[in-house]
Every structure is written in structure tokens, then in C-alpha cells.
């Protein structure tokens, strides 16, 4: 699922091909590509993790991811973005989220990459369930900010 020309936004139940996404944002006018790869750790809460399951409110998650791209473009001089989140069951070591950003200069690429992953974790309706030997728990999450009583659509993403 792809949105605006230079933004690739993906929710997928298949393994994420990080190298292909990193290559996809790169162009001759770029001097920098920053990436972030979130992967499934073998431990959490002091216990051994067996696997994870992710679910999403898919159309809203895609809309929020597109809003993050738009907001990032208003803040940073970047060229292309790819952001992908995996859904369903993930094994240890697999990539759950991947972000790649290209830019002419390094500061924009690095700062935009960080902005994407930090904002995604606060605002995109995706949920993680952690499975341990002794049971499963929904991860502690972050509560998104709510718009004011008379919301404007634009303010709703923060």
C-alpha cells in the first residue's frame, strides 16, 4: 500500500525486507539515508519472550502514518520516506517496524528518522501482545493525545 509519490507506507503480514526499503528511498541527489529497524527482542519484563503478536486498526493506522510523513516533511528537508509495520505473529529477531529516510544532508535524515519512530509509537493505533512461557500480556502503551473539544482534523494527529 503506497501513498504520496515519495512516501511508501506499508502494513504487512509478510516479513519486512529492510534492505529493499532502504534501497528504495535512495536517489542520486541524496547524500544521506538514515534507517531504524525495530526488532523482536528475546526478553522483556525480565522474562524470556517466546513471540509477539501485533494488531492494528488498519485504515486509521495507515492514515496516521501518512500524517506523520506530512508532518515530517513540514519539519525537515528530506527526500523520500519508507515506513513499514508488520502485523500478526512475529518470531524473535524479526523486524516489527522499519523506517528509512533519505535527504541531501545527514542532520535532516537522522532527525526525521527519529521523529518518525518516536511519533509512530505515540500516535499510530497498533497493539503488541507479548507471549511468555507463563502467559501473555498486552504491552504497556502510550495514550495518544486527544484533540480539543472542537477538533480540527489537522490537529488530530498530535
Amino acid at each position, binding site marked *: 500500500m503506497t501513498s504520496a509519490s515519495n512516501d511508501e507506507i506499508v502494513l504487512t503480514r509478510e516479513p519486512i525486507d529492510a534492505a529493499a526499503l532502504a534501497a528504495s528511498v535512495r536517489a542520486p541527489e541524496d547524500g544521506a539515508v538514515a534507517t531504524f529497524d525495530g526488532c523482536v527482542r528475546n526478553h522483556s519484563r525480565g522474562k524470556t519472550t517466546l513471540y509477539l503478536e501485533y494488531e492494528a486498526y488498519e485504515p*486509521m493506522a495507515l492514515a496516521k502514518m501518512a500524517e506523520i510523513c506530512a508532518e515530517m516533511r513540514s519539519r525537515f528537508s528530506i527526500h523520500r520516506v519508507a515506513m513499514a509495520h508488520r502485523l500478526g505473529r512475529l518470531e524473535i529477531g524479526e523486524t516489527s517496524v522499519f523506517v528509512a529516510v533519505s535527504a541531501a544532508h545527514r542532520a535532516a535524515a537522522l532527525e526525521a528518522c527519529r521523529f518518525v519512530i518516536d511519533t509512530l509509537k505515540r500516535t*499510530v493505533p497498533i497493539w*503488541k501482545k507479548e507471549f511468555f512461557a507463563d502467559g501473555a500480556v*498486552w504491552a504497556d502503551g502510550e495514550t495518544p493525545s486527544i*484533540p480539543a473539544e472542537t477538533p480540527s482534523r489537522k490537529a488530530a494527529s498530535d
Partner: protein
Amino acid sequence: MQVRVLFFGRVREIVGRSEDSIELAPGARVEDLFARCRELHPALGPYRASLVASRNQEFAPWTSMLAPGDEVAFLPPVSGG
């Protein structure tokens, strides 16, 4: 009027289903819809403070007015990434 309500994560497990259709009086707000859901699924009560609402795929205040056919969700804290 009828609205569609969606459940995700912990809320989906408590309710035991991922969506429902709810009949509400005209002029109802998001908070009235939640009250109705809590009548149907009392276990939701303790989670109210941790949830945020969405209306038609945008975060929305609990005081938002609903319209027929709206799609509403009560979202637990998000934990993507």
C-alpha cells in the same frame, strides 16, 4: 440512529468480538456510546480512563456528537514499534 463500534487489543478480548452495531438516540455523543457498551460488557468499566476514542478514524473527544453510520473505536494505549 445506528453506529458501528470497533474493538482492538485488550478491549477486543474483554468484549469477545471485534465489532458491533449499536442503536443510539439522536444527539448521542461518544461518551453515551461508551456507556452503552459498558452496559453490554461491564468488564470494560475499569479501562475507561486508559482509553481514547476515535470517530471515523480520527482521534475524537468523548464529547463529540455522533451521526448515523459513524465508525467509532475505543482504543487502548498504543504499543506499535
